[in-house]
């Protein structure tokens, strides 16, 4: 979904930080993208080179860390892996699972020069 808009936001934030730091260029941007966040890493990578082109982030490496989905099952009272958003608990099959990880959309760090 909307990877283009997200990528524009990523590049904007990276350039803003680079300016604040007095950097010449951005050489790497590292993201945390949750597996349940409905965002396609391949699409982000594709958009990134297009959006960064002509800016101080041109040619920067985009590193995407996929964060696995997890939730807290209220019935099992334990943390369980989640394969889909609002999916069932893999242990008991119930739906009383609160997502605790996997919807991250975050810029973790970047490398500047």
């Amino acid at each position, binding site marked *: *979904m*909307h990877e*283009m*808009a*997200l990528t*524009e*936001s*990523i590049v*904007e*934030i*990276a350039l*803003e*930080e680079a300016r604040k*730091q*007095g*950097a010449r260029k951005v*050489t*790497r941007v590292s*993201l945390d993208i949750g597996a349940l966040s*409905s965002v396609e890493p391949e699409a982000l990578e594709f958009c990134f080179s297009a959006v960064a082109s002509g800016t101080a982030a041109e040619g920067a*490496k985009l590193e995407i860390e996929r964060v696995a989905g997890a939730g807290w099952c209220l019935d099992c009272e334990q943390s369980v892996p989640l394969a889909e*958003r*609002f999916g069932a608990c893999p242990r008991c099959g119930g*739906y009383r699972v609160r997502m605790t990880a996997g919807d991250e*959309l*975050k*810029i*973790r*760090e*970047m*490398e*500047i*020069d």
Partner: protein
Amino acid sequence: MCSVCGCGEATIALDKDGDKAGAAHTHAHGPHDHPHDHDHPHDHDHPHDHDHPHDHDHEHGHDHDYDHHRHHEDGVADYGKGLAGSHVPGLSQERIVRIERDILSKNDAYASDNRRFLAERGVFALNFVSSPGSGKTCLLVKAINALKERMPVTVIEGDQQTSNDAERIRATGASAVQINTGKGCHLDAHMVGHALETLSPPPGSALFIENVGNLVCPAAFDLGEAHKVVVLSVTEGEDKPLKYPDMFAAADLLLLNKSDLLPHLDFDVDACLANALRVNPRLQTLIVSAKTGEGVAAFVAWIEASAARRAVDMAKG
């Protein structure tokens, strides 16, 4: 393209007597100014192991050579800002900056501005989301006609192209601003901020924001509204809430529209509502028909009650 905010694709068409003025895009960044203070730690920690200065995990050998070379060539390379604060052979001057910022933080900052602006004026804003063709505009027209004697209503219409929907809304007497998103698949808070400047909703009014018809993207973008209202029509299939869960999770009210067609369909209303509640147990639901008017009175009552509750909450701070 606006060089201040970078907005380029969206155009805002003015309302008022068909005076679209060639999609005049006023760029008074007045009430929409925000200082962009972002408190976040600027840890300049870096993961390089100092015991092995030549062991670099990532590829920057060339950059390092370049910097090193330049240092000897022109003698003005500034290493004072580097990781080590000085030139250390084998250590690159590239710096790693921890950001820890949400990718949507830009949009969310604009959304907070919109929310503050709306709260100050006592405007109750609803963000209507659905797939294309669910009957949103028709339903809004019905709701405006039922509500307008008791509460002024203004509308922001989002579509990729045309101002057809805004014209249908204006026929009710309500002011409407059309945002054309161009290629954009959703409205964002920045576009809505500009539209608010143009629309200037009166105090104590209701603001209906009709998002671009799309059950995916608009879920992620907060516009500053009080509630998202998802409209689903009975011609779409009862498993929509499971196929597009984000939208149903983000909404506070589900309007199941086109109920007049139920006698002609195999649509299972109970199964549909059960699916929606599985994704969002707090979701409120109403069955409506924009054609016959079924449920519209209940929807209008919901708006008035929710607006009153919100006003009380705002007064409490």
